[in-house]
Structures are given as C-alpha cells and as structure tokens.
C-alpha cells in the first residue's frame, strides 16, 4: 500500500500549492498534481483485476486532452487580461462589469 502514501503526499503538495498560489499556471499544476494522485490510486487499486493497464491508458489520454483544453483557455485568459495573476484578473473583471453598468446607466 506504499502508493497510497505517495498519492497522499502528492495530494498534500497539490492542496498546498492551491492554497499559496494565485498564478493561473501554478494553480493548474497543483490541480494536475491532485488529479494524478487520484489516478494513481485508481490504477493501483484496480491492477489486481487486470484492469489497471486499461484504466491507465484511458486516464492518461483523457488527462492529456483536458490539459490541452485548459492550457489553451489559460493562454486566452492571460492574453485578455494581460496577466496570469488570479486576484488581478478578478479585480479587472469587476472593473469591467462596473464600467459596463455605468455605460448602461449613461444610455
């Protein structure tokens, strides 16, 4: 059951990363770490039935596809707001919304 410890450590690092970081890229890396920890658990627990290999291939391919989409979205978001900092992005979003509201009121 050693892999459980490894998965737990990965989970802990991922949660720590989520707690301390506001950078989109770092947040994404942390989430990936947590997801990988879960995958590791599933795959290792399923291996006695011989399903582990099949699940591994499935999990990796799905994970890759998901990462590709998320990375593309991250690039779009950071291009639009000119920064990858979550708190700055949220502040800018609120600014934009207020601007739009005042425009509507002006009309």
């Amino acid at each position, binding site marked *: 059951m*050693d892999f459980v410890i*490894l998965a737990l*450590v990965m989970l802990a690092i991922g949660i720590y990363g989520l*707690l301390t970081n506001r950078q989109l*890229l770092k947040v994404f890396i942390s989430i990936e770490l947590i997801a990988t920890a879960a995958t590791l658990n599933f795959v290792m627990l399923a291996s006695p039935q011989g*399903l582990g290999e099949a699940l591994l291939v499935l999990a990796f391919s799905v994970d890759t596809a998901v990462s590709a989409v998320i990375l593309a979205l991250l690039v779009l978001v950071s291009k639009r707001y000119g920064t*990858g*900092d979550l708190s700055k992005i949220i502040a800018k*979003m609120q600014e934009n*919304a207020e601007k739009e509201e005042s425009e509507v009121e002006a009309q």
Partner: protein
Amino acid sequence: MMLEEFSAWFVWIIPLIASLFVPVIGKYSEKARNYFVIAIAGIVGVLALSLVPSVWSGEGEAITYTIPWISGFVEAGVYIDSLSVLFTCLVAFFALIIAVYSQGYMKGEEGLTRYYYLLLLFIGSMIGLVISDNMLQMFIFWEMVGLCSYALISFWYKKPESIHSGVKVFIMTRIGDIMLLAAIAILFYMFGTFSFHGVIEGLQSGVFNTELMVITAFLVLGGAVAKSAQFPLFTWLYSAMEAPTSVSALLHAATMVKAGIYLLSRFILIFAAAPALIVALQPYWFPTISWIGVITAFIGATLGLMTTDIKGVLAYSTVSQIGFMMAGLGTAMAHTTDVAMSTGWFASLFHMVSHAFFEGLGFLLAGGIIHALGTRDMRLMGGLKKAMPLTFALMIIMIVTTSGLPPFAAFFSKGLILTSVMDAGSLIQTILIFAATAITFAYCIRMFSLVFMGKPSEHISKIHVHEAPKIMLVPAAILAALCIVWGIAQPYIASFMHIELEHTLLGAFTSAETPIFLLLLLPAFLLAYASYYKNFMGIRKIAAGKNPLTAILNHAYFIDDLYYGIAKGINGFSAALTRFENALFAHIPDKVGSDISDAAAPGHVMTLKKGPSDSFRNYVAAAVLGFILIMVLIVLTVGFGGI
C-alpha cells in the same frame, strides 16, 4: 428486443446524441434547430409514455436490462419500475413544455445554440439518472445534471452575478456529490456490485454489516440534502434564480432538484429488501429526514415572506415544498417495513408531481411577467390585473393550488403528507409543518397582491405592458389544467405505484388534518389581507424596518454568511501560508508563470548570452533540489526497488 426495452434505452440515449447535433443544425438554420429540439422532446415523451402500460399491468416487480460496460466488471443497465417510470414521464413531459415555452421566452437571445444544446443534454442525463440500474452510471448522470445546471445558471456569462451564482451552486451541490460517491463506494465494498438489483439480492440474503449500512444511509441522505436544497444547504436555490426563467422552471422547480427525492425514495425501496435494516434505520435515519424536512419547510416558507424578487418567492416556495416531501419520506416507514403499505412514501412522490405542476406554472407565469416588465423586483410591479388578464387568471389557479385549497392537486397530496406526519412525527414536527402550510398561503397572497393588485408603479406606467405571447401561455394553461386534474387522479396513481392506500379521495375531506389546515389558513389570509390591502397596524413598516426578525429573514437565517465566513477563513489561512512561504524562500526568485513577458524582454536575452546569471544558477539549484526530493520520496515510499 421488446418495446419497453427499446424505449427504456432510447428514452435517454436519443436526447444525449441529439444534443450533439444541435450545434451542427444551429449553424445552418435557427428555425430548424428550434423545431429539432421540440421534435426530440416529443419523441422522448412518446418513448416515456410507452413504458407506462407494462409497469401498470405488472405486479410491482422491477424489470432490468443490462449490457456489458467495463468487461467482466461492471454492467450498464436500465431499471424499470413504477418509481423510475413516474420520474421519466415527468421529465419528458416537462422537457416538451419547456422546449415550446423557450421559443417564446428566449426569442432573440444570444447563444441560443448553447442553450438548446444544454437543454437536450440535461433532458438525456436527467432521464438517465432516474432510469439507471447501475449506481456508477447514475452517479455520472448525477454529475452531468449538476454540470448542466451550472452552465445554464451562468447562461448570461457577461453578468458577474450569474457567474458567481453558477460557481456557488456548483460548489454547494458538490458537497452532496462527494457523500453520495462515498456511499456508492461503501456499497460496492460490501456487495461487490454497483447494480441496484445486485444490492437488493445482497440485502435479501441477510448477510450485511448493519452499522455500515446505517452510515451509508446517512451519506445517501447527505447527497439528497445538497441536491434537493434542504437545510442547511438550501441557499443555493435562491442564487440559482439568475438562470433564464425557463431553466428555473425545468431544473430548479420540476426536475433536477427532485433528484434528491428520487434518490431517497429509491434507496428506501432498496433498504426495504431487508426488513431488519429498516428496523435499524427507524430510530435515527428516518427521524433525521423528517426533521430536515419540517425545518426546511418552515424556513423556506418564512423566507418566501420577505424576498422582493418574484423568482425568489418561487425559489423559497420550492425549498419549502421539497421540505414537505422530505417530511413525507421521513415518516414513511415509522409503522411498517413494507413500502407498499406506506402512506408517506406515496404521498411524497404524489406531492412531488403536483409540486412540479404548480411551481412550474408559477415560473412560466413569472417568466411572462419578467418578459413584459424587464424586472424581477416585485416592488416595481403592481396593478397588472388589467394589463395581463390571462396571466392573472392562471396565477389564481397557481396560488390556490400552492396553498393547498380543495379540490386542486396540492390539497390531496399535501393532505396525505400532513396525515403521515401527524401519524408518525412528534408534536413539534406536526406544529412546524402546519405552520409552514399557513405561511405558504400568506406568501402566496403577498406575491399575488404585490404583482397584480394595487396601483401600477411608476416603472409600469413608463412602459407599455403587453400580455405574454401565446406560445408562452399555452404551456402554462396545460400545466394549470393538470393542477386541477392531478389530485383527483390519486387512486389511479396509487394503483400505478402498486401502493395499497388506505385513504380514499373522499377521506381527504373528512380526515382530521383538513379542518385544522383550513382553520389555519384563515388567520394567515386575514393577516396577509390586512397588511397588503389595508396597511393594517403598519405590518409593512415593521417588515421594512430594522429588528431581529427582519434581520434574520433578510439574511436567510445567516446560513450564507456562515459559509462565506468559512471561505474567508480559508482565504486568510492561504494568505498566511503565502507570507510564510515568501519569508522562507525569500532568496529564490519566483518566476513560474508570473511574468512571461518579462522573461522575454530584450535585456534578459542579453544577460543569458553573456553567461549564466544569478537567477539562472538559482534555477539549476532548484531543479537539482527538486530531483533529489523526488528521489528521496521514491525511496521512502517504494523502497530502493523503485529506482
């Protein structure tokens, strides 16, 4: 392949596949896309109806069909019995109603292809959820309806409130999802199967761990509480009102919030396979459900008295009515271990359908009003009686049904629940639930008088108010007709559900709870009438002023504030951790993702060319450190064999 097997599979596969075609068709013609959605909803309705005869004529036994899914391990399947067919028919019927209504309500909106895609995806997943034989399959659909709910609440993604509401709903329902997943995992661990019929066989054999099953039952309850917006997780339903009104009617009144009721009634059926288990659940589990139910019914009704948002009233009304259903389920098995003899179980499902009709009707009419006035604030309405006569007439039916006046649907269904609670619940539960029925009447009267009575507000006199278009009124009229008919159909529904009901239709008028109930409506009516027509005693002034009661009601019993407090605490913890980390690693540059543009600036390229800079050396040091850390971790966890 028999007809019912064919229907049971395709009733959810067809909308799921059709949803993928919506963007393709929408690219060429918007009109074709709209008709396509209505046609699919119609096909689903026919398929759902074709399931009815065999279940009705059957003996109440469930029929299952399975196909291999993950080879030799898990089988996908459909589970046809009266419960799943009742839900399937309700979802299919409402899907058709909303598909037609959306043609009028959503006309001219942006992003309609996305809207219809999510609508069909939701219909497919919701029917898949109620008809699955396999808990894993059910859980996937359970998550998919949550996803559709999130995406449809945030439909107007340019409004910050709707994004915020969508995220809030997603997170709050997620709490329940995790509990349900844990329950499924425990059941798999105990019985080695995900299928309902497998678990039932396991329970019938009598070999199971009773304590573990009780824990499982509580986890299932947690899933239902979050999904069905029950105390203490009910606040998300009010936020969900940021969605288009058609979506609120379909997801947040008629179908998706009932998934919790479905889950509980399904698991009560499963647990009933082992009478010993029901006996073990009677002291704690069932009373917990009924307490949650009556508290939610009371809280929801009181909150409906204060909100000024017309959809907010309907949202809290939904919360309150689902509380009634929970109370019915919680008192269902107090005196019996056989579901077929249980009044509460049937009453809850019967009320579930009648609630779908009257609340759906309420939302459709509110949609028409919002469409005409462009606001959801009831203080800006008033005097709509003359401008919208048809909506006014239909709203009277909705009000009368919601408050449970005879002889409309809720009189019979709510009456059965009250009987069940009086039979089995404690005195406080009985008092709370009767108070909730009285307050229900009061908030209905309040909403009605604020919207339709009195003088038109300034807002209304500025715009030309028009009656809702026909395409929106016809679906509402159908629901209104069903509100009237549904209660009288009670004996047929009981025979369809294979329930031996002691209570006859006429018995509903003579049983003990009816006079109490009707007597309670009188003071509620007088109070509402006095305060909203005569401004008696300045009740409205008290309600508008500042005192502990209004503070509690305006803050929804401070439950949201509690959750925001928890979130704030986590944020503070996270900020403290960040400061700690910065102090610890102050000399290591933090460049990952922070400023990619900085790294690409000309100056930096020059330094790289000149030779390794300080920061470059630091990177290498960090990489080496990380490599060593990983090696140590591997050695610690796997041993030297890992390398």
